[in-house]
């Protein structure tokens, strides 16, 4: 904290004074700069440079083999005006973000809350069970077998057996069904890091708050949840939200594995997949960067919105 204060002082002062004094400041606070260096270097190399190079590349035509050709805002114009599939991708991404993001976030919270009520051992076991799907990485391919379009696929064979359908349905390639399947799988996967932080958050709340609240006249668990638990958990909620947004905007690999790439008529095409399509299949890195920049902007905006909402909950 102290360091942060120092830095704030440093930069606000440097705005007013000349460069000469800036170098002198560096000399003066060189210990702080040295301590800052490791993080700053990593941050620049792995975040600033890639992001800014994507922004630069988004203004070019780049096929990954020959030198990029500068084209100005052509890519952006094309993206917003001339790319039908981009619109489908935005639509699907928004659906994913809204449905799987919010449901996943809610589920994570509710399950964490439930699990918190159990004893220590049971809690650990349940945590493991709910966390297992995302722990196991690419395990979602098992859904391929469940929703296989073959008449011996699990789901099809049961539906056929009990007479709901007479011909096997193509769950993964028929645009009527495949979006639903992917949403289901993504929700199943959504108990990730956010969920764990919720569980940790619940356990970190000081018991004395609840006692105090009971004395102050809290009547039931709902009131307890809203007046004590939630405000206490804002950092975790924030973390969970960020993770959830990032996850739901980057849905793509799951739908790629399940419904093929590209999916039938782009029915489960997301921005991420649209980017991959141009980056790997069509050899158009410039345009892919344009999409990446757009995706980045979308994430940033939704993060700001969430931040505002949570600030209200915590009452700051």
């Amino acid at each position, binding site marked *: 904290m102290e360091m942060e204060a120092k830095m704030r002082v440093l930069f606000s002062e440097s705005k007013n004074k000349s460069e000469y004094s800036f170098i002198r400041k560096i000399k003066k606070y060189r210990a702080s700069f040295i301590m800052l260096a490791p993080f700053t270097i990593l941050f620049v190399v792995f975040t600033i440079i890639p992001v800014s190079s994507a922004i630069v590349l988004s203004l070019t*035509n780049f*096929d*990954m*083999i*020959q030198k990029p*050709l500068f084209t100005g805002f052509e890519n952006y114009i094309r993206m917003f005006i001339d790319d039908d599939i981009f619109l489908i991708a935005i639509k699907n991404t928004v659906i994913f973000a809204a449905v799987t993001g919010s449901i996943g976030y809610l589920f994570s919270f509710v399950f964490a809350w439930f699990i918190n009520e159990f004893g220590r051992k049971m809690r650990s076991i349940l945590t493991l069970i709910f966390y297992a799907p995302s722990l196991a990485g690419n395990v979602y391919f098992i859904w391929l077998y469940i929703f*296989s*379009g*073959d*008449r*011996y696929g699990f789901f099809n*064979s049961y539906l*056929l*057996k*009990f*007479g709901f359908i007479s*011909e*096997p349905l*193509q769950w993964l*390639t*028929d*645009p*009527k069904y495949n979006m639903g399947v992917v949403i289901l799988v993504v929700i199943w996967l959504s108990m990730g890091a956010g969920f764990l932080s919720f569980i940790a958050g619940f356990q970190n709340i000081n018991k004395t708050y609840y006692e105090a609240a009971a004395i102050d006249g809290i009547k039931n668990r709902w009131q307890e949840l809203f007046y004590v638990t939630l405000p206490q958990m804002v950092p975790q909620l924030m973390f969970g939200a960020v993770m959830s947004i990032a996850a739901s905007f980057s849905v793509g690999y799951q739908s790629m594995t399940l419904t093929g790439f*590209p999916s*039938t*008529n782009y029915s489960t095409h997301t921005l991420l997949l649209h980017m991959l399509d141009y980056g*790997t*299949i*069509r*050899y*158009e890195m410039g345009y892919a960067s344009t999409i990446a920049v757009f995706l980045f902007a979308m994430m940033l905006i939704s993060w700001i919105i969430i931040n505002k909402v949570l600030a209200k909950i915590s009452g700051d």
Partner: protein
Amino acid sequence: MKNTTVKIYSMLSKISIKIICFLLIFLVTIQVNFIQYASAEEGENIQTTIISRIDEIKTYNEYISEYTNNEGEKVTIIVNNLNVTDKAIVFSAIDGKYNCIDLSRDKRVVDFEFYVSQSGLYNMELEYYAPLDSTSTEIGLDIKVNGNYPFIESSTLSLSKSYKNETENIKVDENGNQIRPQQLETPRWLKAIPFDKTGFNSNPFLYYFQKGSNKISLNCNYGLIVLNQINLSSPAPKIEYKDYIDNCRTNGFTDTTKQNIYLNAENANYKSSPVIYPKSDRDDAITSPSDPVHIRLNTISSDEPGQKIMYKFQIDKSGLYNINLRVRQNQNRGMTSTRRIYIDGKIPFEELNNIEFRYDKNWYIETLGGNDPFEIYFEQGEHTIDFESNTGNFASTLITVQNAIYDLNVILRKIVMVTGVEPDPFRDYDFSVEIPDLIEKFIDVRNKLSNEVTRLNKKTDFSGSEINTIEDIIRQIDSFIKEPRTIPSRLESFRGNISSLSTWILKIKNQYLEMDYITINSKDIKKGQQRASLIQQLEYNFKAFIASFVDDYNIKETSKDKVLINVWLNTGRDQSNIIKSMLTDDFYKKNKTAVNLTLVDTGTTLLQAVLANKGPDVAMFVTEDIPVNLAARNALIDMNRFEGFNELQERFYSSAFTPFIFNSKCYAVPNSQTFNMMFYRTDIFEELNIIPPKTWNEFYNILPVIQRNNMQVGASGESQLVFESLVLQNRGEYYKEGFSETNFNSIEVLDAFKMWTGFYTKYQLPLTYDFFNRFRTGEMPLAIMPYTQYNLLSVAAPEIRGLWAMTTIPGVRHEDNQINISESATGTGSIIIKNSKNPKEAFEFLDWWSSNDSQVRYANDLESTMGPAARYDAANKNILERLRWQPDEAKVIREQWERVIDIEMIPSTYYTTRNISNAFREVIYKYSNEREVLNKFNKIINAEIKRKNTELQKYNKSK
């Protein structure tokens, strides 16, 4: 009258049912050509008569049971060139023997006539020589006695060849690891009784000859063989060990002392098959030789019936010896693996016919004879000992289970014909009316299987998990018999049980045994250590762990004075090892170029490497879409500029280059090429009285017949190969001249699209299916699949051996009555990257690699290493007959291959395939109008082609 018909028909049934089917197809299709539909009745007559003939040939077990008491006194007859009746046969001198009969490619049959003084059963031992021939690893024979096959197995006999390691001592690479030695054919004179490699008969075949004049006709079906003579001898009386040792004692042979002859099993002198090669065991620290850091090839294993491993050794002191083996049999739980042991080419006493090795997950030392070790007499001098895999006492089990599977599949098919593939659980199928003998048949199969289980349980020491497979199906059949109405709802698990029974056969047939060493030692020598102690094992593993940090796994070529080219391979480690050994044996001797092979996934990695200027000179086995895409972006060197490319082109069909051509220049050298063939079940086709379709009209005609019986037909589902083929067969084209536009608005392509989608909308063919399993059970008796599936079926589905065939795909009949069976293909190729500093050397390498000899060697080495399922689908057109396809298989593949055309690749091909797939699905799911859908997507594709072309031109302008 009967005799003559028998003769005619057995002539017809020369090899197997397969050929008859071809004949049938031929006969019947001729009729079809003239009278479109009327041939069914006549076809029926021909079929039934021939089939009943085949059934009259006995199996060996039936045959031998007729003659059991008929052993004559011991007679030996030598049949040689003097007995040959055909005057046209030329005798030659080969490898020290005169008057040999060379059954080379043009003359494959030889008849011998000879006189037998005593009626009886005879062993038929051939003395033969297998000349160098890379096309097969064994020799396939059939033997007729007096014009007929005495028993059905006599039509599919095998003889093994002889192989050995390329060098006496195993070579070591730069990193100190031993390299798996190549297995070299070593032609030499061999004596053997032709055997049945299915393992259903474990004892050598005996033939019955009547007193008087007899004739043997020997036909070589595949492989090359030179015959010297045939030794016919009455089977020797069986000597038990007791008698053997008594005999030794009376002859005054005594125990030896302090003699210990140690043979490292991996250094076998001869092996009967190239798949028997030294392997590396790292599970046990004392498996010798042992090295915790480097790869040591220290064991050898064999499994298939008939495989033989031979050792030579020197005995210094005459006398009696024990034999100990350090072995492991960790594959068939609760089962034993059997070996037949020959000493100096003979089996000294009966017990060595069936030496059983028990299951153990660890290594152990087995003393022949067990607690009362056999003492075997060896005279001073050189001796040999052979270990032959053998199904031993399991042979009869295999036959029973095999028959049971066949019966159960017939039953399953009958049930499916009534209920459909997916039965309605709420309906009562009245099986007692529909299939009156159902329960009877179930009881029959059940009894046969349970007898076998009782027998097995008596024999093996514990009821291992391997037997459970049979027990499971018995339990299920029991409950079917009790409650037949539950059959429909449990059909799925019944099907599963049958297929696990087939897998079981494969497993049991393989008499797996891994050997570490063999000792032939005096009684007083102490047995070696069975397995490593805990401390030894810990030390070994610790060293291996430490070494894993520094060990370099890459194969590097370190020659400084040579031009170095970097080659990236998109394959596995085995493949790269083979190429590496080919380089040392052949390439380096002719060229001054060093090749550095690296295993890389050449998908996106290649692109990134090229971008970073860190790419290779050559990338091999890249997929079809890469060459044109990279070429369009000036990242590749075209092949046309190299001298010798015209010559190289001659090695391939022009279709192999089609996908690699961009702006009329070729950017890759083809490696592999695969296309579809039609697979069908001959037995089911006979049952249903249909013939494999030659045209799509015939295909449509038989579809309802198959579907009415609730079976399915597979047409590759969404694979666009079928659509591409249909376009080509309709004489359509994908792209218009100049590749700036598709040709999808033409009537030919629309017709093809209608046909393709029609399979799924009108005929309801399954979109996704598991070909291998459904073909096996017979639920899918007809399917169009890549020809490489052939290998899988021939290796992993023994229960339908001889019951299926592969042929060309159906074609479109044009006005001129020609059937067009053109087809599209997929393949891989090798490219040269533009940044390469040594393009000339890179092309030299590719030229060498794609040459006939290199490709044959690669294909054969690959098959020797990874088994027949890994047969290489080489694009080189000259080598098909030199690979291990049987001649008639090679013929149909060739017939189809010549008609392969393939579709051109353009930089926006990705958009074509994607949108054809979209169009296909739109028609299938929504039953939309084909023309409208195709037009709609055609516009989208054309827009993208235009856009892509403008984008690519931008670069050309900027230059």
